């Protein structure tokens, strides 16, 4: 099928997701917020099998207001852990389209390997990440991002970054 104005191609989606990752690693949080649709939800679940995130306890379940509050906290200088924030470097690979490239909303999954550095410590966070993207008049927008850390059920350390 020939891509139309409304559809999102695989390559376009991968470029968009790479930009999102770059924003987070470089703490361009204002740029990150702009990537989201107004009704977008950012989720870091605890339970791998959960799909009704609203009815479940998560590490993060952020609508637009909560994302803005989260960014404010990370950048305000009021939070000890955020002032002393980790540096992160993430690699994304193993992209796979879930569903149909011709759809106007596209779902794509990838592997994320994130290295955190803080206080002489390197930590790695491996995750399956699922994105749902939609096109609006401004371009692509993030409708849902779900970060399933493979060790999400373990005891984690405080995160002063966004996975």
């Amino acid at each position, binding site marked *: 099928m020939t891509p139309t104005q409304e559809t999102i191609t695989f390559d376009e989606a991968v470029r968009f997701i790479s930009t999102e990752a770059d924003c987070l690693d470089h703490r361009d949080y204002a740029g990150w917020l702009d990537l989201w649709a107004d009704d977008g939800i950012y989720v870091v679940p605890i339970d791998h099998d959960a799909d009704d995130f*609203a009815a479940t306890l998560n590490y993060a379940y952020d609508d637009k207001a909560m994302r803005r509050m989260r960014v404010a906290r990370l950048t305000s200088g009021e939070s000890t852990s955020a002032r002393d924030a980790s540096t992160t470097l993430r690699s994304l690979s193993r992209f796979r389209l879930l569903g149909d490239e011709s759809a106007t909303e596209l779902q794509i999954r990838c592997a994320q390997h994130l290295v955190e550095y803080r206080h002489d410590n390197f930590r790695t966070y491996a995750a399956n990440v699922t994105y749902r993207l939609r096109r609006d008049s401004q371009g692509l927008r993030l409708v849902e991002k779900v970060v399933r850390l493979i060790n999400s059920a373990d005891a984690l350390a405080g995160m002063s970054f966004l996975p």
Partner: protein
Amino acid sequence: MTTHDLDSLVLPDRVHASLYRDPDIFEEELDRIFNRCWVWVAHESQILKAGDFVTTHVGRQPVIVNRDRKGEIRVMVNRCRHRGATVCEARHGNAAGFVCPYHAWTYGQDGSLRGVPLPKGYKNFDKSDYGLVGLRVERYAGLIFATFNHDIEPLDSWLGRARPWIDLFMKQGGGFPVKTMGEHRFTFPGNWKIQLENTTDAYHFPIVHKSFLTSLDDATEDLFSFMDSGGYVEALGNGHSVMVMIPELVDLEENLDADIPERFAAIADDLRRDYPEQQVRRIVRAIGGSGFNLNLFPNLACSMAFFRVLRPLAVDKTEIRHIAIGMDGGPEIANRARLRLHEHFQGPMGFGTPDDAAVWERVQRGSAGTAEPAWIMLNRGEDKTAANAGDVTSETGMRAAYQMWKRMMTA
């Protein structure tokens, strides 16, 4: 460790930093405190049906907490009586029994040894001698405690004056039984007592949790700005204490006629379709939790709207669980609101927990060296007078916990 040493390390108004860093003291703590106290292991709602179990720890010892087919709640050492393997590694589930993966020794829900493959070659082997080792178990208001110490006083008297506070805490069921709703688990590189102190430390709240307070709406920020709002700390005996931050939220069944806060107005409107007005108010008032932290020595706090459970992993490493609670059979909208409130503050991505963990880690780092004096000061609120009887920032609860610590370590 001699009594004399501890006398010099734990004074009424201060403790020595070696309590955070001395591995010998840590080993003694596991033996003298965690193996001899009543230790909280689970909430009844986690094991409602016959066969339901959770696995957890008492000190270093892995244990299984389950409900057998007769409804009895048991806590059993999670260790096969043959060669010592754990017989269950799932964190929770439902099981008719437990089978050791090594040689398939098979245990019933009650821990009795039911079967041994190839039962030959043993001299005088009686299966009844080889059941899973049981701990003593008692309950109060849904809280399940266990102990290796068969001589300890009954749980009711151990909890003593903490019991009415537990009753008050459970009112956040809003007329429904309290149930657990998942948990955040995290570790921090520091001693467990740093966290034990923190649940009765209001003094840090406006400093460490400034970014949390900023994120709240004005009315809620006022509610959490409790430095001068009539709060107080009270020692309750046996190392337990209560810190009341928001006096008007001590009893959630009082003041039901008060105005519903703006942030809960939409939820109240929704609830009015299904519940009469008084019940709506009771539920709404319960959503935010209680206005106090109840610290139960040594490992549980009933902290405003959740259970805080600590587990010492090493002298400088501690695991903490923040267990979300809600209304069993209560309205979904109220329970979802509680989940979102829990996520807002708690856990490795919360607006509160990572900042707590960061400063606790700093305490451990600062306490690593041996430069003297190395006192951890607990003397706030010692000037208690009639005019200053109720300061929420007083370190009364910490002093009480350390006196209990000393009592157990020297018993």
